[in-house]
């Protein structure tokens, strides 16, 4: 049975370019009072001049079968959150129609309506009722909620005294105990510590197994892949792919290559003899498809295009790349010579392909630097980063756990054992 049918949904926002109180009452009143006719005439013109339409969603249609857990993915600004807001009736669509079959609960934020001055217990009741639970229903589940959140001892402490971890745990626990037929969730798993995250994932999986329908927006491809059987890809307000989540995620990672394909030729400041010049850089997945984003823990190739100067045949070529944080702090350097792989001869025009195994970087934006040396002579060294490495989160640990949230760019994988001594 179809649980959600979305037909041709569009949402238009009007953007005001002059933000200096266009909406202020003074403006509206003063103009109307001073010269009503001019005001009426100009009103229409102004509306078209100073404002611009922005379509957050355009003709979005898809349907969701009962029991499906659907991931909605796409870049920032693709319209994911707008879609969820329309589905949860927070805002109205400009066009189109949605048919929902079943009780809907939406969770666009963890702890909506929590009040700092109220105790944990009071907030459970408040938050529960805001999310649409009955008083009796909350009372029934109170013990379960408290147990899940692991805050028993602090139940009667105002939440403003909670650590942020406790706060989030309590908030998620209330939401997790909603039992709607259709659940709409926006990026709420990206909270709490690793242990609690895996607990939340488990709870979400129960939702899926319980035959309930869920719609789930996330930037975390690892959890989308793990939780969702299907996915919808949005790009600038338009659905560009739907299908099994694995395929849609692959599509997401591959689309719009042009963004990362950067032309190094335009970098003016560069040192070296110029016998060889680097010309381009882009990312590829292990099977050689150009990609836009690398994913933590997955193999990725950094591909550098080059061209030798007329008549030059550099020998014993050593190529290096460097990775930098977005503030250009150097994170790592890799030369072919470190791997005892300098190239004796190279074709006059070609590419160097650096394969990086299990990318140990956390999600974020990084920069790529490059340098080419031959027989000890520097051939080319662009003095600026030559490309960007955009990393999205992935299942680095192979456990579905996202790991540390703070600012720590490097990921380590290993083992830990315990022995008696």
């Amino acid at each position, binding site marked *: 049975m179809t649980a959600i049918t979305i037909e041709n949904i*569009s949402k238009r*926002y009007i953007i005001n370019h002059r933000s200096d109180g266009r*909406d*202020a*009452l*003074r403006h*509206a009143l003063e103009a109307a009072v001073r010269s009503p006719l001019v005001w009426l005439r100009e009103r229409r013109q102004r509306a078209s001049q100073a404002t611009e339409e922005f379509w957050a969603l355009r003709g979005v249609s898809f349907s969701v079968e009962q029991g499906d857990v659907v991931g909605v993915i796409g870049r920032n600004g693709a319209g994911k959150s707008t879609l969820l*807001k*329309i*589905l*949860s*009736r*927070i*805002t*109205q*669509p*400009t*066009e*189109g*129609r*949605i*048919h*929902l*079959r*079943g*009780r*809907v609960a*939406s969770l*666009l*934020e963890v702890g*909506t*309506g929590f*009040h700092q*001055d*109220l105790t944990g217990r*009071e907030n459970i*009741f*408040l938050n529960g*009722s*805001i*999310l*649409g639970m*009955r*008083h009796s229903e909350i009372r029934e589940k109170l013990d379960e909620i408290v147990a899940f959140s692991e805050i028993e001892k602090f139940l009667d402490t*105002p939440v403003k005294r909670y650590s942020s971890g406790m706060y989030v745990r309590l908030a998620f626990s209330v939401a997790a105990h909603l039992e709607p*037929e259709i659940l709409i969730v926006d990026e709420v798993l990206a909270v709490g510590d690793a242990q609690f995250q895996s607990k939340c994932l488990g709870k979400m999986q129960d939702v899926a197994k319980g035959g309930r329908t869920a719609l789930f927006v996330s930037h975390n491809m690892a959890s989308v892949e793990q939780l969702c059987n299907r996915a919808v890809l949005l790009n600038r307000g338009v659905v560009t792919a739907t299908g099994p989540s694995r395929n849609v995620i692959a599509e997401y990672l591959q689309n719009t290559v042009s963004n990362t394909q950067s032309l190094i030729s335009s970098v003016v400041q560069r040192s070296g003899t110029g016998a060889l010049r680097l010309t381009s850089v882009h990312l590829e997945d292990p099977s050689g498809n150009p990609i836009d984003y690398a994913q933590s823990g997955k193999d990725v190739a950094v591909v550098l295009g080059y061209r030798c100067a007329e008549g030059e045949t550099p020998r014993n070529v050593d190529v290096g790349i460097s990775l930098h944080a977005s503030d250009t702090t150097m994170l790592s350097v890799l030369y072919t010579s470190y791997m005892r792989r300098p190239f004796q001869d190279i074709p006059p025009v070609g590419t160097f392909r650096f394969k990086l195994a299990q990318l140990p970087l956390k999600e974020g934006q990084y920069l790529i630097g490059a340098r080419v040396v031959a027989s000890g002579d520097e051939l080319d060294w662009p003095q600026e980063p030559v490309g960007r490495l955009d990393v999205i989160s992935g299942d680095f640990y192979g456990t579905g756990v996202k790991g540390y949230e703070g600012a720590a760019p490097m990921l380590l994988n290993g083992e830990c054992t315990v022995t008696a001594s």
Partner: protein
Amino acid sequence: MNELIIEAGRAERQYWRDLWQYRELFYFLAWRDLLVRYKQTVVGIAWSLIRPLLTMLVLTLVFGKFGKMPSGGVPYPILVFCGMLPWQFFATALSESGNSLVTNSNLISKVYFPRLVVPASSVITSLVDFLISAAFLAVLMGFYRFAPSGNIVFLPLFVLLAFFASLGAGLWIAALMVKYRDFRFIVPFVVQFGLYLSPVGFISTVVPEEWRLVYSLNPMVGVIDGFRWCILGGAQVVYWPGVAISLLAVVALMVSGIWYFRRTERTFADVI
């Protein structure tokens, strides 16, 4: 099976049914506001007595002692307090419900529920303060050995009238405030003026006869007159045409308030 259709530009048919389903939320939001209001204060709930008490003292002094206004044979403090009760209720309800959508903007932009719940529960919160003050009036009357009249059985009707006057005006202000924050400055102004424009510190018989009808367009005139009639009894001559006009004004406020609120409600999340 619950079915729900969301369609562009169509006012939802199930709105009033939703309002019923979310009826517990009225209670919970009001409960939250009450719990929170006096946290980390020293005298706590007593504040809801101190404010009307001090205002009553000032008004008694100004109008009763210095102004020598007629009181119709009732101790002036009681006369003033009977007017203060509904006025204070209206004033707090109006300011609280007017601000309610903006102060709850985090809810508006993240969860669905009929938005009407928010300003309405603010009025309910103010009603609780009103009840506490009403208890104090009883004490005051005991002190002056003044027995209430039998008309008191009609008091609930006038409380209801005050309730809807506040809610109607509150709906307008709340909806307007979402777009025009100017009302944050207008409301305290209105409340301040209203205290003197409404017959709080004096009885409405001091208003010249030919102006009584116009004066009654202020819905609180009918409410306050009604309160005095109920509590103080026959000594207070009620100008019934005025009460009728006030009643009509309340109905007009309420109907237009709901209409405007419902009309703008859809865009709250986008504008707030």
